[in-house]
């Protein structure tokens, strides 16, 4: 990874004698959607607070866009974040007035930006209502709208899906995906593994404040397994194809990852050209939930069924 938009180095946080985050190091690149998952008390919220400078590390450091956040507070202009669930606003002000207040605190935003983020998060019709009467989902969407106000290069979100109905969730996912596609590094903490599996690039599994695993979901998403007449020859044939990111073998099957799922139709042609007969093809589904349970249970030394 060339330049990291978010980076932690041996980050630790203790409350008194109790360690909450331990020796945590990870990097998130521009354009990535990175998820922190873990059971309650795993330290996800503390990590978010350390990343946003709301809490101070006991040891280690946080770099955002290559700069130490605590030494460069002005960098917050380039960062958007939601750290409360539900997102915190002045309940006696309207959604629009709250965003206007955020814009002032941020040193101003371009004309029409408030209207733009309200439209993006589908909040135009409720913009003049006081936030005190907003539903949880609306508050969360307003939180994401506020985070997007300054067109940040880094987005940090604590439980963005908390309290959201499926429609709100869909809206937020779309907005975050769009932000990432434009180069914004997105880091979110969540309990919703389906949400993670759907659109995150990588996921970090935390347990007792430690990073116990980091999974690249891109490598697992467009992944297929094929039964072929000659596994070795099929692997060699697929490896050389530009639309294949990775090809390996597993027993009597060849397992491959596509650069783009649209290229699936070209696999059969490549195999036939290499003189290999394709006997069967199926998506090699990655079960993040099962994987998560397995990793957390292994760390705890209990059976996977005991992990919620």
């Amino acid at each position: 990874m060339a330049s990291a938009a978010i980076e932690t180095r041996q980050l630790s946080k203790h409350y008194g004698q109790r360690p909450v985050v331990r020796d945590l190091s990870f990097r998130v690149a521009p354009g990535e959607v990175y998820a922190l998952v873990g059971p309650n008390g795993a330290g996800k919220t503390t990590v978010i607070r350390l990343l946003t400078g709301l809490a101070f590390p006991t040891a280690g450091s946080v770099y955002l866009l290559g700069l130490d956040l605590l030494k460069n507070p002005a960098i917050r202009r380039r960062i958007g974040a939601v750290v409360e669930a539900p997102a915190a606003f002045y309940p006696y002000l309207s959604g629009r007035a709250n965003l206007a207040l955020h814009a002032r605190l941020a040193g101003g935003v371009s004309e029409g930006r408030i209207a733009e983020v309200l439209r993006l998060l589908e909040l135009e019709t409720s913009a003049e209502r006081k936030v005190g009467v907003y539903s949880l989902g609306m508050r969360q969407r307003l939180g994401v709208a506020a985070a997007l106000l300054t067109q940040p290069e880094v987005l940090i979100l604590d439980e963005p899906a908390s309290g959201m109905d499926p429609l709100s969730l869909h809206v937020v996912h779309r907005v975050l995906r769009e932000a990432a596609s434009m180069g914004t590094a997105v880091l979110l903490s969540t309990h919703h593994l389906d949400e993670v599996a759907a659109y995150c690039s990588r996921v970090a599994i935390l347990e007792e404040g430690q990073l116990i695993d980091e999974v690249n979901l891109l490598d697992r998403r467009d992944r297929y397994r094929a039964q072929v007449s000659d596994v070795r020859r099929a692997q060699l044939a697929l490896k050389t194809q530009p639309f294949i990111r990775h090809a390996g073998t597993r027993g009597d099957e060849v397992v491959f990852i596509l650069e783009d799922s649209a290229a699936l139709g070209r696999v059969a042609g490549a195999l036939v050209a290499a003189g290999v007969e394709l006997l069967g093809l199926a998506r090699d589904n990655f079960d993040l939930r099962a994987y998560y349970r397995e990793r957390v249970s292994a760390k705890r030394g209990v059976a996977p069924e005991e992990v919620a």
Partner: protein
Amino acid sequence: MRALLSIEFGKLLRLSSLRFSLVLLALFPAIWAFAPGVAEIYGFFVISAYQVPALALLTTMEFLLPLLVAIASAELLGLERTFGTISTVLLRPVTRSQFIAAKLIVATVYPFLLLAFMLAVGLISGFPFGYGSFLGGTGLGAGGLPGEGLITPGAALLELLRGYLIAACSLVPISLLALLFTVVWMNAAGGALATLGVLITMQLMVVFPGLERFLLSAQLSAYVQPVADLGWVLALLAVYSAAFAATAVVLFERKDF
């Protein structure tokens, strides 16, 4: 910082404790101006409009005004905690020092605003007694309410302004102390209660005569003290205020949210 300050003053105006305080402080002068039993119970007659604000101050300065000031200042920060908006604001390019400094400025100005309001309401409430010269005193100058002879409207108004200004100054450290305690506990009720606790404890400390002139609670009556002591009083209030404000900034800078 200018944006932050205007936002903070906006928040102050929305505090429920401020609205309640304004109602109470409008009520007190009206009670003195229109209560029928003042002469029977207190043994004097209100004879001038200029005495009404002084009577209102004399009866609220002991407990009510410190209480109202402490509650509002504690609420300034405590409500942010309740709403969760401390984090929201600190995620913007606003330093912690700027955030707490804006609140300290509002907490410093607040007693002056509150007393300006009570003075204005007091003067308006006193209209039945007239605004001319009168034989007696305002209650805030030499001679107290009986006074030292004829007093002109200008002199009476000056006495009131002086008394109200000194009273506001002596409320400033209380306001800042409430904010400091709220920084410590991040809870408005805790901050206000701790402030009152400190004031009541200080009032008991008068049993140590050597300490009295250093006690914050003793300065609450500074507005009726002889002018000779004023320099000392104002210096002491400034030292208390600076110490409370500096401690609040230092603690807030190191707090985890």
